[in-house]
């Protein structure tokens, strides 16, 4: 059978070249030694899938038109004052102490360059590809975090980690990265592993996934020693236990814990997603769960990272914001400008960044959405420049092609 499209063959060869080893090399034959990453700062990117309503999360209560456009949503639940103009949605109250300590900030009225069709799926693809409308959705299939890895030295397969069962396009690309879900396991005898390696030898996609799986299962101690052994048809207790643990779904807290544990080892960059933001109706209630997940994730990262939290920046971004006016069903529809969340000990928090466009009727984008005055990519780029010492010229070409970073908003300490 012909297994390899030219595309995947090229991708694999590029990956191998980046690794500096031959295509046939395998981690089993050549155990990798993990040199410490060339830097000590950490970046976590959280993709908020579904279109987070920035206007409900960071509420512009100081804008006279806010209550007019959102008669019920502006009054829903509680809100905590941030800076006298903006208030924090009460479902994020667990994060308020971080704001007070300067470890939490936001950028408002920001968006990707994606415009007008307001499709979740294209919007997310563009957010993760980091491209502009000139390139077109889907034209570039790798992610900006992966292209960033190509520009820094000393990167190993563990430097960056995609966490959870979803594919993280933002980390896809030619530079090898790791990906694992906290509830995945693998039990196979050493002989079985060797044979599998043989089966996967000529299929780069399987070879790469298989090698990483075996290696990670071992490293994370998620395999049992016994395997299935005698072959009498019975499942071992370990197998049953592992199947059971597999049934538990990984919530944000579990993803964040796993992420922080990796970042406390040799990993420096990680990405995962939190979904459920598509609040077309009954938003006051519908947004609760996702905000709780976001708060859990950030609080857990902080707790498990310990001293490393001080060297960490967390950037949470979404594909688009939502309509300024609440719709007829207590929710909001797909919009344009929104908010991004910045957290971490390395972040200069306690501030809502960005240029507020105002919510008066004439100021809305296409008379319906929050007018974007900033590009989410610019904030991510400034964060990466500060954390990893990348040049503007590299950030504005290879990583975010066509981006104008603009003045430094100084979001890092």
């Amino acid at each position, binding site marked *: *059978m012909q297994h390899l499209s030219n595309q995947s063959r090229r991708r694999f060869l590029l990956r191998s070249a980046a690794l500096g080893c031959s295509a046939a090399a395998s981690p089993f034959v050549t155990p990798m030694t993990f040199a410490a990453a060339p830097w000590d700062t950490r970046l976590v990117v959280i993709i908020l899938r579904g279109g987070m309503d920035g206007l409900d999360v960071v509420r512009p209560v100081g804008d006279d038109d806010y209550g007019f456009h959102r008669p019920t949503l502006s009054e829903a639940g509680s809100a905590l004052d941030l800076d006298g103009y903006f208030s924090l949605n009460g479902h994020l109250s667990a994060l308020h102490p971080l704001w007070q300590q300067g470890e939490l900030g936001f950028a408002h009225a920001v968006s990707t360059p994606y415009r007008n069709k307001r499709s979740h799926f294209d919007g997310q693809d563009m957010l993760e590809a980091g491209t502009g409308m000139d390139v077109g959705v889907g034209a570039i299939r790798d992610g900006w975090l992966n292209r960033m890895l190509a520009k820094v030295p000393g990167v190993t397969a563990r430097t960056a980690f995609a966490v959870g069962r979803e594919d993280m396009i933002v980390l896809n690309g030619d530079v090898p990265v790791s990906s694992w879900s906290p509830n995945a396991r693998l039990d196979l005898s050493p002989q079985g592993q060797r044979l599998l390696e043989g089966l996967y030898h000529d299929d780069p996609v399987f070879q790469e996934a298989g090698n990483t799986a075996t290696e990670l299962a071992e490293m994370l101690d998620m395999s049992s020693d016994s395997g299935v052994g005698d072959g009498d048809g019975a499942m071992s207790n370990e197998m049953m236990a592992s199947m059971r643990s597999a049934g538990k779904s990984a919530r944000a807290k579990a993803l964040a814990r796993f992420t922080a544990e990796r970042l406390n080892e040799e990993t420096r960059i990680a990405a995962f997603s939190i979904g459920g933001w598509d609040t077309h109706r009954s938003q006051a209630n519908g947004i609760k769960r996702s905000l709780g997940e976001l708060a859990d994730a950030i609080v857990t990262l902080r707790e498990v990272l310990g001293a490393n939290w001080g060297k960490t920046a967390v950037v949470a971004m979404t594909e688009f914001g939502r309509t300024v006016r609440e719709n007829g069903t207590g929710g909001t529809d797909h919009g344009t400008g929104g908010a991004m969340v910045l957290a971490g000990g390395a972040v200069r928090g306690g501030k809502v960044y960005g240029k507020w466009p105002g919510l008066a009727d004439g100021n809305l984008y296409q008379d319906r959405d929050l007018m974007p005055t900033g590009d989410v990519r610019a904030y991510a780029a400034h964060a990466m420049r500060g954390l990893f010492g990348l040049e503007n010229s590299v950030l504005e070409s290879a990583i975010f092609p066509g981006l104008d970073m603009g003045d430094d908003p100084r979001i890092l300490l």
Partner: protein
Amino acid sequence: MTPSFQTMAAIRYGYGLSPLVPPPQSVGAMLGLLAGEDTTAHNYPIMSFTQRAEEEVAMGFLRRARRKNEEGAADSLKIANRAAAKELMRELRVSMIRPIVSQDGFRERLLRFWADHFSVAAKGKGLRFVTTGYIEDAIRPNITGQFSTLLREAVTHPAMLVFLDQVQSIGPNSNVGKKTGRGLNENLAREILELHTLGVGGAYGQTDVREFAELLTGIYYNFRKGFSYRKQAAEPGAETVLGKSYSGNKGRLEDIYAVLDDLAVHPDTARHIAQKLAVHFVADRPDPELVTHVAAAFSASQGDLMATYAALLEHPLAWQSAGEKAKQPFDFLVSSMRALGVRDHMLTDLPFGKSRLYFSAPLQVMGQPWLQPGGPDGWPEPVEDWITPQGLAARIQWALVAAGLWGGDTNPRDFAQTALADAADDELRRLVGFAESRVEGIALVLASPEFNRR
């Protein structure tokens, strides 16, 4: 080397080879089965949406009673919930048995294709227990007729109206809108244009979404009261969608059907459906020639699905470049059990706990929780989305369990022949023969790239 027609037909267009069911012998035979009676559904019934919706209503009453702390309500609700969850698990088993035993594998694949195209996620909004019924009522009987019928049945089905919030959407200038201050919700209108018909690259804009959303107002469903068209909630006045005006001045259900009928035969829709079929069955990046051929047949027949499938199967490109696609987790589980010779009775009475352990939990770790895609766009197609370290580990893990449960005393080399026939190369036969145990040898066949690709 391209495998034989029989092997390709079974693996690419069905649920794989089986020691019990012969593979298709020709395109004509495949289309003949598809055009005939759906005996599989008849032999292995699944409850209709209406039946499950009645239970949902009863559970709604129980939930309200519990909120009011009525005596016994909490216990009754617990019992009802458990029974519904049990039935859902039974439906998962039946949904697996059908493609495991059926000779009409192409029908079963098409069912999953269309259920994905018209995805309704079985979570929240009272949909957890009724989505199987939606697929059974709205999708399954309509996959061999006109696309317009399938479209209408799917997007105006109660499950879809609830899933994409249409039941909440009110014409702002309608009587109900003026009285209550409630208004539009664009969700369903947008997804019909973007996902179900024209595709995101199609010839529509925000104004079309808006006007279409206004036209859709009035269509209504409630678990207790059922389906209705509420004229007093429909936005008055004509609406223009893709340059054509609908709904003179009176809100009518017929106008909604009229716009759906026009969308169903739009050239962008033909292209979108042809592209999706080719991507699902042939390759992540299919040859444009194949897509054009299928789209032309769709257009020429005004969206006749049998003619569209025939165009796909008759084209030489549909039988080339084997192994470009990865089986999705559900298909991986089903084709494994089919290859292992699992018989219907071995699943029929499997208890709830074991069903969860063997099927629903592994599907989750493989990245495809049963009937719960992340959004209305359904599951992703690319190989790289499924063959991830964590996803592959879950497949290997499950293969070990399946081999232990159903492998019996089969020799792994014989199993390679049963499961893959001429799609297995000598190296695969050689390697699985070296396994330490029969279980591991069989699991290796199931975990091999040859078995996981199609």
